[in-house]
């Protein structure tokens, strides 16, 4: 009994008030939307009840899986590819400073290409298909990871590196054991920025060159004037985006907890 009470102790008093403060506005907005849109005669701003109905039919269960899974798979592949390339290349460019400086104008230029501008080129090279989407996502989201990795690697304590070198610790151990863990917070910042870019690009690419995925489903609904379905798709996309962000925050906390535990030496 006492254990149960202890488990729920955090729910009492101030915690509860805190949760209430965070939640009253979204609930009010949702209720307001419901009331304002119920029995709406507008062609475009349809009632929330029909949107939720479409959400249940199209975005939950099997139909939802058929729409969402291809997007998530492409997103994961592109994002992981970008993370791998960004971290590896960023570590090299960060450690070998002359090389990093020499290619910096090229990086700066390539990074400024708006990701969506590459859509026509991607279509030309790969045609419609997941190859095109994965490579667009990888290209668009690699830059924040690359730049943050370079910065993170460069800000590793020089004395630490010198100590490791004088103890003749092999390079791969130095990188895996010290350089990357110290750069981890910056790398995570880059990954988070990249995640939202990747989500944007996947939806964009599905709207133009695709026959499946979330973006395709939403645009298709609009073209067929299935307005509740379109709204439901937009809502589903919002929820998916939010869940991905929450998931990423969890991973980030896990990674950085190790980082903090490692770096809590006296004086730092």
């Amino acid at each position, binding site marked *: 009994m006492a254990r149960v009470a202890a488990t729920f102790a955090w729910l009492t008093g101030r915690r509860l008030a805190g949760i209430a403060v965070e939640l009253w506005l979204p609930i009010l907005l949702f209720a307001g939307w419901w009331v304002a849109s119920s029995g709406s005669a507008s062609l475009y701003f349809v009632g929330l009840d029909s949107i939720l109905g479409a959400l249940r039919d199209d975005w939950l269960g099997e139909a939802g899986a058929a729409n969402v899974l291809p997007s998530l798979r492409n997103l994961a592949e592109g994002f992981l590819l970008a993370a791998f390339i960004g971290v590896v290349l960023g570590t090299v460019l960060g450690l070998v400073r002359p090389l990093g400086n020499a290619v910096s104008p090229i990086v700066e230029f390539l990074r400024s290409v*708006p990701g969506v501008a590459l859509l026509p080129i991607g279509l030309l090279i790969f045609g419609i298909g997941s190859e095109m989407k994965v490579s667009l996502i990888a290209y668009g989201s690699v830059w924040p990871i690359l730049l943050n990795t370079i910065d993170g690697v460069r800000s590793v304590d020089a004395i630490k590196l010198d100590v490791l070198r004088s103890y003749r610790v092999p390079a791969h151990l130095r990188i895996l054991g010290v350089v990357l863990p110290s750069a981890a917070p910056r790398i995570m910042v880059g990954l988070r920025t990249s995640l939202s870019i990747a989500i944007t690009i996947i939806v964009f690419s599905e709207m133009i060159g695709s026959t499946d995925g979330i973006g395709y489903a939403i645009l298709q609904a609009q073209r067929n004037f299935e307005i509740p379905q379109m709204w439901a798709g937009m809502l589903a996309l919002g929820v998916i985006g939010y869940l991905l962000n929450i998931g990423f925050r969890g991973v980030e906390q896990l990674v950085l907890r190790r980082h903090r535990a490692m770096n809590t030496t006296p004086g730092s």
Partner: protein
Amino acid sequence: MTAPGALLRRAGARGGGAGGVKVLTVLGVLALWQLLSSTGALAADVIPSPAAIGVSLVGVLGGPEFWQALGLTLLSWALGLLVSICLAVPVGLLLGASELAYRSCRFTIDFLRTIPPVALVPLALLLYGATTQMKLVLVVLGAVWPLLLQSMYGVHQVDLVARETARSYRLGRWLRTAFVVLPSAAPFVFTGVRIAATMALLLTIGAEVIGGAPGLGAAMALAQTASDIPRLFALVAASAVLGVLINTVLARVERRVLSWHVSQRPSRG
């Protein structure tokens, strides 16, 4: 191993040599690309040679269509960014000033922010068709969130000691706002402006590519349908230059406006 690296680093720090190395690297990469293209290692119908792109770029820059498209893109970018700043910054500053308002809105804004603005393309197309208005709606819906969040954070994180000091000297609400709150929030707001500016350009061009609203993006889509590949690459390169220019100008403005702030002092490295 360290000696040559240190020498190079010192040479880089002197500045003169570094610029030369960068120019040489760029030229080297372009030469390698040209070589790969002329030997046929890169198929010309997939990735054209830099020379072909250059020739096409000269043609593109010489015609009035490009400048017209650029003007339309820049117009909706600037208007959208301006509207977003006017909407989001005051609201964000006000919300950040009250603890209750800050915590009440945090979840809602966090949720709305994660909805990719692209999701609204179909709705905007439905409401406005392929017009500048459509682009504006998208740009504002995407650019408002970083501005709002950064302004809220900025006010929320004003140094407590500074705030209390101002209060104990009995500075009035307006004086406190003008001399303590706004200056401490300014760097955060500026970061928001930079994020929003990039976002706005991305969305403007995206809306043009997908929605067909007139501008650089529509010109790209046109070049793609016409299979004029060098022209397509030239347009993409031009949009990248636009992105670089916007970044550079904003960074310079930030340095000038916030020259008094800690974050802009050179000692930070």
